[in-house]
């Protein structure tokens, strides 16, 4: 009697197990299927739009024949803003990561900054774009208007000059776009620098310090060298993250249908161009949008794979 019961229980457990495992395999398949589908769509439609003109011609007017015009201004604008963003964010991020790992590792302020940094890492990018808009575009405009309403502001002189200058900088600009992107790179770099520096063995610090080397030299000459590939990985991952970011650029850099290298003016960029072209009803714009999406995807995948191999090589060297 007991053995029958046990047998039944056993069968039920095995059945449950088999169902769960089959379902998990199915979940993995379904997840990968959709992700693969998205990649496939981007690649197949993007390759259709690929041509030399993409890299040599400006964005065309709506409704132009397919094949006319390219994305040159958008590609160059994206490169300019991404490079600018990384140049601004990487030094600050590396410094902040150094502070966390070397000076505030076990202190409460370190815990707080790490916590805040992790929140920034996942904060909605559109909110960061709004933040930069208010600080760099909205606020200067309001201050300038406020000055103009005062008597001293109307009388001319330096106050009026200040108002003019503030009005001049308050507008969509490549700089504002780069700052917004910089705020997205920053937490990535902070986190990787912090983690990589903490991986450097303490003996290395002690050995260097015992030779009488000041701590800043230990950090810059010994620790940075040991953690270099890790820190570089962080910067690359940050770059991969911003190269497709659209939302924060919508109201900072805006977009531009023309060639522009003036950092104080709206600048064309790939993600916003792709967004506008994809949402438009024009065939030629939609095709260019897919080609742009293809470019972005290829770039992001390449940079992330490179970053990964860099990290992997370092790990192998350590082991």
């Amino acid at each position, binding site marked *: 009697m007991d053995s029958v019961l046990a047998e039944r229980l056993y069968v039920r457990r095995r059945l449950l197990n088999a169902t769960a495992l089959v379902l998990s395999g199915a979940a993995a398949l379904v997840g990968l299927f959709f992700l693969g589908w998205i990649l496939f769509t*981007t690649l197949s439609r993007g390759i259709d739009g690929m041509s030399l003109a993409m890299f040599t011609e400006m964005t065309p007017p709506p409704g132009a024949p397919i094949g006319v015009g390219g994305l040159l201004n958008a590609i160059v604008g994206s490169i300019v803003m991404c490079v600018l963003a990384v140049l601004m964010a990487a030094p600050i991020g590396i410094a902040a990561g150094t502070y966390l790992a070397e000076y505030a590792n076990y202190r409460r302020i370190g815990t707080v900054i790490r916590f805040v940094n*992790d929140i920034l890492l*996942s904060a909605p990018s559109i909110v960061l774009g709004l933040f930069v808009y*208010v600080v760099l575009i909205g606020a200067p405009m309001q201050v300038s208007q406020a000055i103009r309403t005062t008597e001293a502001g109307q009388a001319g002189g330096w106050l009026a000059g200040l108002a003019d200058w503030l009005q001049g900088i308050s507008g969509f600009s490549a700089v504002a776009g780069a700052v917004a992107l910089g705020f997205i790179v920053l937490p990535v770099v*902070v986190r990787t620098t912090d983690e990589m520096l903490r991986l450097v063995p303490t003996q290395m610090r002690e050995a260097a310090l015992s030779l009488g080397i*000041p701590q*800043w030299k230990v950090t810059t000459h010994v620790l940075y060298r040991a953690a270099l590939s890790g820190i570089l990985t962080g910067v690359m991952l940050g770059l991969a993250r911003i190269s497709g970011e659209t939302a924060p650029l919508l109201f900072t850099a805006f977009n531009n249908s023309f060639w522009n290298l003036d950092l104080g003016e709206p600048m064309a960029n790939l993600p916003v161009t792709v967004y506008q072209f*994809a949402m438009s009803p024009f065939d030629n714009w939609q095709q260019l*949008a897919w080609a742009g999406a293809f470019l972005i*995807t290829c770039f992001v995948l390449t940079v992330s794979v490179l970053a990964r191999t860099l990290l992997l090589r370092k790990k192998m060297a350590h082991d």
Partner: protein
Amino acid sequence: MAAATTQLDHLARSDARADRLFRLSVGAAGLFVLVGLVGAALTMAWGGREAFATFGLDFLTSDNWDPGNLVFGGLAPIVGTLITAGIALLIAVPVSFGIALFLTEVAPAWLRGPVATAIELLAGIPSIIYGMWGLFVLVPLLAEHVYPFLSGTVSQWPLVGWMFRGPPIGIGMLTAGLVLSIMIIPFIASVMREVFLTVPTRLKESAYALGSTTFEVVWDIVLPYTKSAVIGGIFLGLGRALGETMAVTFVLGNANRLATLLEPSSSIAATIANEFGEAFADLHRGSLLALGFVLFMVTFIVLSIAKLMLMSLQRREGK
């Protein structure tokens, strides 16, 4: 002798100065991260003060969003954000759990590494790609094959039917939730996989030795051990889904009103992305900033919970 001492003294002093300066500058960078987040929250609140002052609590409870008459109630986008993120979680959590289970217990060893890497790479694909795929591939498919059934048959069902009323045009919160779920699956799955790997092999082997099936080991040993971190990973995905802009803007239809799952609707991020560039009235802009503030606060809370949950597993591991 004396000269050598003074020279050494001098050197030591300049080293100490350089050390202080270095410490100060990296500390300033660390503080900058802190100020960045607090500053973002404050500027949002400051930019939205006009809207909060004008509409008071109505801003959160009224669904009347009328830029023409300068009346702004944000209920519809707020509800839209919550519902789309909810749908996304409903789909993404079980699928992610399946993927993590598959990658840690079921799949053959040679398959685990490549699939895990592929999923992590897919997490880096820019959200605009997901949005374009949603609009050009998923929307026509759903409009033709799935939504006619939902709006024709399911909408007649008692209790749940009303959710599926509306024209089967393929655009709306259900589609947005589907696209979002595909987007956050890689995030949640890779967090789950990572924390599943932290379970001590001894624990699992003991359970296997007692005769547990694979599913029993995962359900009764792995999940309880990693519970807090798994919830943390889910909240991380929720944070992403709430603040996601581009993937949602493409397929939501930009209609700022309360809607069923099949009607065009709106979310906070999509409303900001669609309207901010054309919001010329101060109150309109302020209202969008106020919406941004609401979004920021909600994601801040969600991400804080995620972080605390993830930290509690790390603490137990003694990190």
